[in-house]
């Protein structure tokens, strides 16, 4: 009589151990259900918002496109080199992220300049070097006005626009947007707040584990 009870208890304990769920980050942005027919049955799949193809010039005047981010996770943000409001704070924090993941080839950073006219590659290069960024894993990019402002608003969901009322003529938010290998949005963090950036670094580890990119 006692043996089965003991077994049952042991089973419960084992269950509890194996039941440890892996933490997963949410998928952000728009989503829509799509009906597919698999093996004669209708299956509803959810299609999530993704980052569309893009092509910019980076600080080395090389073309950088969505292909360079295939199979990698990355952080995207918007800034400009002459900005003296939130950008220095954002990039002071981002520098910590860069240092932490510098040796991981599966992590990249993509900083879009919204000062299309002035932030040409040579200027972005000077900015990157002064910041202490020598690797192209942190890309500072210059693109056409439409492509940058459109991708900010529609894909990364970051407000960035030209505003004549602003002393510098450019207004933007300081979000750091975390993108996974499928180019889906997995997190948005206020780049001016140290604690949120710390959380982002933890979430990046979680995402790398989920994507099984930690093994080398």
């Amino acid at each position, binding site marked *: 009589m006692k043996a089965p009870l003991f077994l049952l208890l042991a089973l419960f304990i084992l269950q509890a151990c194996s039941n440890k769920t892996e933490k997963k980050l949410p998928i952000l942005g728009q989503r829509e259900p799509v009906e597919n027919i698999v093996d004669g049955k209708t299956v509803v799949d959810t299609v999530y918002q993704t980052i569309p193809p893009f092509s910019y010039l980076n600080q080395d005047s090389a073309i950088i496109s969505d292909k360079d981010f295939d199979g990698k996770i990355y952080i995207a943000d918007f800034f400009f080199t*002459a900005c*003296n*409001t*939130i950008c*220095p*704070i954002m*990039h*002071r924090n981002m*520098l910590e992220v860069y240092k932490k993941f510098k040796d991981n080839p599966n992590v990249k950073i993509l900083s879009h300049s919204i000062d299309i006219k002035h932030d040409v590659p040579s200027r972005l290069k000077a*900015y990157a*070097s*002064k*910041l*202490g960024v020598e690797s192209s894993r942190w890309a500072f990019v210059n693109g056409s006005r439409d492509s940058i402002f459109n991708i900010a608003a529609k894909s990364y969901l970051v407000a960035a626009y030209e505003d004549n009322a602003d002393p510098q003529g450019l207004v933007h938010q300081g979000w750091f947007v975390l993108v996974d290998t499928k180019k889906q949005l997995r997190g948005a963090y206020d780049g001016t707040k140290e604690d949120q950036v710390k959380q982002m670094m933890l979430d990046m580890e979680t995402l790398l584990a989920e994507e099984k990119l930690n093994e080398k």
Partner: protein
Amino acid sequence: MRNKLLYLSVFVFAGMIILQACSNEQQLNYQRYFVNGKKLYEANCQNCHGAKGEGLGKLYPPLTDTLRLTKNKSMLACIIKHGISETSGNHDTSYQTAMPGNAALPDIDIAQIIVYVTNSFGNKQGFYDQSTVTADLKNCK
């Protein structure tokens, strides 16, 4: 008799307080400048130069070089008010980043920022009066 003694002691006490206050006026001014300067620094300078005056890489110079601050002290007001261009040659050659000016800042605010900066981040250079700032600003290049 007892009343007289009480009267006298109160008088002496009051006199002492007034004397104390006079000798501490400089000290009080310093503290007032420092506290206001901290607020102004946070609003106008901290984004780039950092909460601990540490700067950022080679983009924005740190404010911890006390020797450099002493040597160029009469230029500080001009730099805060008018900024410096990338090629002005006024700054350390390893930091060729333009600094925007703050033309709207009144002299008193500039003096308060100078007192805060030159007495924080490991600097200890004492009081800097508003009138000195006004004089400095007349000699801006």
